[in-house]
């Protein structure tokens, strides 16, 4: 049995359903792997964990992973279970916002901690400054929940299609009271939830093999979750040690996540990679990454082996 530690990007929830399913259903075991899943949290930067030796593989968004690469931490994408982005900006309709041209002068909630890159790229493609002022937007560092919208402290907030959006709905605001801007629709989508490892470890064929088995089992998990969203949600719930998640919310999240993983067999599509890099490079005066990371930032070595 080989030990593998996976560091998640966020707390235990259906967003990571595939991995939990693979663990619960013994897919990892069948591949000869002994997998430990470490939940994340608001102040856990998975790249830092992997740099400190706390994990073998991490779930991370590509903008953050590429930025880490520029900062001197050579992360490499080995698989990309999420084919499309779930990020969007959700606004209250009664603020009168109908399109991006209405943003100037508004207050927008944004996640930081490495998750602000897609937003910053979008704004710079729109040519809207993000440092306040009349022609720019006022940016709030959004906390963990959707309160800023409910309390009307912000006109729009960042949400994920599978999570925060539904929290807004659950809070009693109907869908027609909301205006949403999906990053996918705006043409500024970046890749989310990929699997990353440290570059030098890929020189070891044994490690590559181990990761291949890991990716294979994980994708099995995702496929199973796609077919059995309710059971998958219940598995996630079982792993939630805080006891804070609710059944209804996780089942719904599993369904929404399925729409994002659909269309991926686990291998990274080089076109998507290129599109993400171009979006990030487009960031005006202060781009997220200053130069093209090159193809060393991803590899098919693992996923090819996994998909044999």
């Amino acid at each position: 049995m080989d030990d593998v530690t996976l560091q998640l990007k966020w707390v235990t929830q259906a967003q990571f359903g595939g991995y939990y399913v693979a663990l619960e259903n013994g897919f990892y075991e069948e591949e000869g792997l002994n997998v430990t899943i470490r939940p994340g949290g608001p102040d856990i930067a998975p790249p830092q964990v992997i740099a400190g030796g706390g994990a073998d593989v991490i779930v991370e968004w590509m903008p953050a992973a590429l930025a880490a690469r520029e900062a001197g931490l050579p992360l490499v994408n080995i698989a990309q279970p999420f084919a499309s982005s779930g990020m969007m900006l959700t606004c209250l309709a009664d603020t009168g916002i109908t399109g991006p041209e209405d943003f100037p002068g508004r207050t927008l909630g944004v996640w930081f901690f490495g998750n602000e890159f897609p937003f910053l790229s979008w704004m710079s493609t729109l040519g809207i400054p993000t440092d306040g002022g009349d022609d720019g937007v006022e940016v709030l560092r959004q906390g963990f929940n959707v309160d800023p919208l409910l309390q009307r402290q912000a006109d729009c907030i960042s949400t994920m299609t599978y999570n925060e959006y539904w929290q807004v709905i659950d809070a009693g605001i109907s869908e027609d009271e909301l205006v949403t801007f999906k990053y996918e629709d705006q043409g500024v989508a970046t890749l989310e939830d990929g699997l990353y490892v440290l570059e030098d470890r890929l020189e070891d064929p044994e490690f590559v093999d181990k990761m291949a088995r890991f990716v294979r089992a994980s994708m099995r998990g995702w496929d199973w979750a796609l077919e059995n969203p309710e059971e998958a949600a219940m598995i996630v719930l079982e792993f939630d040690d805080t006891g804070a998640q609710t059944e209804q919310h996780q089942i719904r999240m599993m369904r929404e996540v399925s729409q994002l993983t659909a269309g991926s067999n686990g291998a990274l599509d080089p076109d998507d990679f290129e599109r993400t890099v171009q979006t990030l490079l487009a960031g005006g005066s202060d781009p997220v990454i200053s130069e093209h990371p090159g193809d060393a930032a991803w590899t098919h070595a693992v996923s090819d082996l996994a998909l044999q």
Partner: protein
Amino acid sequence: MTRSILPVLTVVTVILAIWYAACIPVNAQWTRDQAARAGVELTLRDIVADTLGQQRPRLPAPHQVAQELWASTWVEETQGRRGIVNTGTLSNRSLIFHGWVTLSATLLGFAMGTAMGLVLAIGIVHNRAMDRSVMPWAIASQTIPILALAPMIIVVLNAVGITGLIPKAIIAAYLSFFPVVVGMVKGLRAPDAMQLDLLRTYNASGPETLLKLRLPASMPYLFASLKIGIAASLVGIIVAELPTGAVSGLGARLLAGSYFGQTLQIWSALFAAAIVAASLVGLVGLVQRITLRRMGMAT
């Protein structure tokens, strides 16, 4: 003790009254918005009823918090699927479980922090070099926002193979050692000149002076420091429970509530934490009373 009951009840009643009264205007906005969305007219009575029973209130009513506390302790353990009655172990959905996780780490961190604070204070009082060089850095250490360091500390410690209670306890110790140092440096220096001179005439050694004069004389300062230290330790643990993966403990519970905007869960965890803190402080107070009585200093 019994003499305290009436005053405490009075104060609590007043606070509850103010709290209830505050719930209405604070939560009313939401009630009105909801009514407007549904297109119904609300009487004052409806508004009051609604503001005191919302799912995600800005300010939950006291009885809601109490209900939630009850439900997530007694009810969860006795009736819950994972409760101690059904499984023989504490349920991970109950505040008893999370409270215990936090409490045990708090005590460990407090013990470490107090020990370190005492050692430093003694060093500072007895050694000029330490007095001159360590104190400014102890101060500076407290200005470092530990939350920023916590993930790094935990990552590093995990890499070295230290997991479980200890990383959390280290962060708690980091926060709680400082009040002990500040208080004890002053306390150990509190004996007056004559008391010190007396020991000088006996040619008492440093350790003897410490044991027989400085420590006893510093007791009032020590206990004031310990009370703050133990409260700080709890804060430290709760802070540390975020980056440990936020899986268990009152801090994790608070945060989880906060991710999902579960105001009631936040408040009940908050109260559980306050109950733990208050009982710990009360415990230190009890030890203080007993010690001072033993020393003949209580009147």
